[in-house]
């Protein structure tokens, strides 16, 4: 296409008979002149001279006004190229800066959109007339994709997961949740290019497919824009609602070689983004697939571990400081997975919590520990760890009661160890359950104190039997900071009338320091490592 016009003399475009729409605008976006094709393509009245596109709002398709205003807003660029679909016509618009004062708009209509999108009845209607497709259509778009030119072929999948969306449903109601989804969809449709495919992927997930754009720049730029945009407040049902969005990216030829893997990889990347930092974006890489496979395998193993009796309990002694006499044991779970060896609880407990399997495992631990302890001398206590997730079913009290009844263990010999994490979420309910369990005669200890969101409030909110000083402080006892912290926790315990136990004590030096500062009990390798149930007799005799 060649357009020859001398700007200084050919100010009047009205005589230019071309299929291209041409218009000249000044710095403020005022139309200086336009040809018939331009008026025709945007369905404008003949008299547009000296008007801005916003002046013409009433006379033309609002989608076109919006589009032209937005396009002209990028006034710092020398040349702008945009594509939009208006009235079922695909319009390519070029804006070229002629000089400081004037810009030329060229519009070209192509018969069909670059990627035919099925029209669906989605409430999200937008200025660009872009539509939301569903998951199946998204997969079809990927399957039918043909590279433009072999060298520049690219396809990028941007998977968007709304964070905390469930909470909106819970707190503001499902109606508000639906409205928010609609607005989130509209925001996405407003900022994507007209040849991007936008899909409502599942409940709180959207996907944007970018076709033959400059990658990875286009996808990462879009990901940033999306997470920024969805972080902005929404107004729903007379209230403001705030969410954020995590984004996972999979880009063809950037760790993803097959178009068939795009969705899966983008989901893996999204999962990772959500785990690490909500509101962030993550590009797929091979390690994510590896981690996911490992996790999957662990999950399968975990589902049958109980049934196959792969768990065992080990017991680590707890002793009085004054004479190192063993007064109790902490039950510690071990999982020996055939072919994989010992799996650390640090790895499988969070997974079990995630899967909900922790309820069964926790129940087994309580039953087994109580049964083992019932065979020990009566002055020996048994401490059992309880996960915050176990409180969610509201049946922990019954489980504890059943374990005590079945084993015949006196409730006074059982101590549950909880962590600060329990008290962060729904503190009222957690405290109520703790009180009920305590009323049965069972004592409650605060575990890992100082590692989480330690708050003095938590300590005074419940009559804990014991504060366990986390082993990380004991291991770092050579630093002033750790020593100060240990002293402070012991002082705090003594002020509140709560016993303190130091975990991870390995050396005499650590022992002496703790003894000097009034710590009452210890646990750690200095005393003994965790041992199987059969070796307990030998330890206490």
């Amino acid at each position, binding site marked *: 296409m060649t357009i020859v016009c001398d700007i200084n003399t050919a100010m009047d475009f009205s005589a230019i008979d071309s299929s291209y729409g041409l218009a000249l605008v000044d*710095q*403020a*976006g005022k139309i200086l002149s336009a040809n018939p094709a331009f008026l025709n393509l945007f369905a404008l009245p003949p008299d547009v001279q000296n008007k*801005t596109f*916003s002046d013409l*709002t009433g006379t033309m398709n609002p989608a076109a006004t919006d589009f032209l*205003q937005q396009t002209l*807003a990028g*006034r*710092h660029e020398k040349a702008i190229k945009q594509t939009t679909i208006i009235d079922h016509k695909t319009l390519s618009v070029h804006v070229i800066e002629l000089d400081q004062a004037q810009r030329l708009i060229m519009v070209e209509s192509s018969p069909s959109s670059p990627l035919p999108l099925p029209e669906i009845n989605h409430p999200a209607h937008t200025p660009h007339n872009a539509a939301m497709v569903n998951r199946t259509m998204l997969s079809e778009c990927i399957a039918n994709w043909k590279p433009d030119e072999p060298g520049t072929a690219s396809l990028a999948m941007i998977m968007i997961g709304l964070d905390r969306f469930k909470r909106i449903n819970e707190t503001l109601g499902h109606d508000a949740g639906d409205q928010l989804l609609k*607005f989130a969809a*509209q*925001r996405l449709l*407003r*900022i994507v290019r007209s040849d991007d495919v936008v899909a409502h992927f599942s409940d709180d997930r959207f996907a944007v497919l970018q076709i033959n754009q400059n990658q990875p720049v286009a996808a990462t730029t879009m990901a940033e824009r999306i997470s*920024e*945009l969805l972080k*902005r*407040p*929404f*107004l*729903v*049902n*007379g*209230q*403001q609602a705030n969410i954020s969005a995590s984004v996972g990216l999979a880009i063809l030829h950037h760790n993803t070689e097959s178009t068939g893997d795009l969705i899966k990889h983008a989901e893996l990347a999204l999962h990772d983004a959500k785990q690490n930092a909500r509101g962030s974006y993550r590009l797929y890489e091979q390690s994510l697939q590896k981690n996911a496979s490992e996790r999957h395998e662990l999950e399968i193993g975990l589902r049958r571990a109980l049934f196959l009796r792969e768990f065992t309990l080990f017991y680590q002694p707890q002793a009085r400081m004054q004479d190192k006499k063993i007064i109790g044991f902490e039950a510690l779970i071990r999982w020996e997975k055939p072919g994989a060896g010992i799996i650390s609880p640090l790895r499988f407990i969070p997974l079990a919590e995630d899967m909900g399997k922790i309820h069964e495992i926790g129940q087994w631990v309580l039953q087994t520990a109580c049964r083992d302890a019932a065979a020990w001398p009566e002055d020996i206590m048994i401490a059992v760890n309880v996960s915050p997730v176990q409180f969610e079913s509201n049946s922990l009290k019954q489980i504890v009661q059943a374990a005590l009844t079945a084993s015949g263990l006196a409730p006074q010999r059982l101590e549950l160890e909880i962590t600060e994490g329990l008290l962060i979420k729904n503190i009222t309910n957690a405290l109520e359950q703790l009180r009920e369990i305590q009323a049965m005669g069972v004592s409650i200890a605060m575990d890992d104190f100082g590692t989480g969101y330690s708050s003095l409030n938590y300590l005074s909110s419940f009559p804990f039997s014991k504060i366990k000083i986390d082993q990380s402080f004991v291991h770092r006892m050579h630093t002033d900071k750790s020593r100060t912290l240990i002293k402070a926790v012991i002082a705090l315990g003594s002020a509140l009338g709560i016993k303190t136990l130091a975990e991870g004590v390995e050396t005499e030096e650590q022992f002496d320091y703790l003894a000097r500062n009034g710590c009452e009990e210890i646990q750690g390798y200095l005393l003994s490592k965790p041992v199987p149930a059969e070796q307990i007799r030998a330890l206490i005799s």
Partner: protein
Amino acid sequence: MTQDLYRLIYLSRNTIPGSNENIHQEIEQILAVSRQRNAASQITGALMFNRECFAQVLEGAHDDIQATFERIQCDPRHADVVVLDFKPVEARRFSHWSMGYIGYDTLASKEFTQIQQATGFDAKQFSGERIYDLLHAHLYAAEKAGSGLGKIA
């Protein structure tokens, strides 16, 4: 509830680059577009600008405010939007203006900046009422004084 009268007050950070002249032109465009749209959907309100931030009040039917706000949210010329207040109100207080404007070299804008400095630029500490009263008082004062209302100050 969808037709009930609501009031929205929000703050956002200006992201328009370039010279004063350029910012001036962009705001002129924002105002032109918003006045036209607001008149069509019976929204009234005011915008205040102090180079760094926008403060805006919108009054109108719940759903119209919702739709307007969503459009504003997608505008790349601002960021860090903080909603100070969104609640039902008895009556409009900006019924004279589809979008009244208080620009950056005005007394009100200086007060806006002072509030901002006093609160350490922490949007969470801003009171919606304070912004609201500031906008209201100054727009009326400007109207009484007969200064070109609706014009860029």
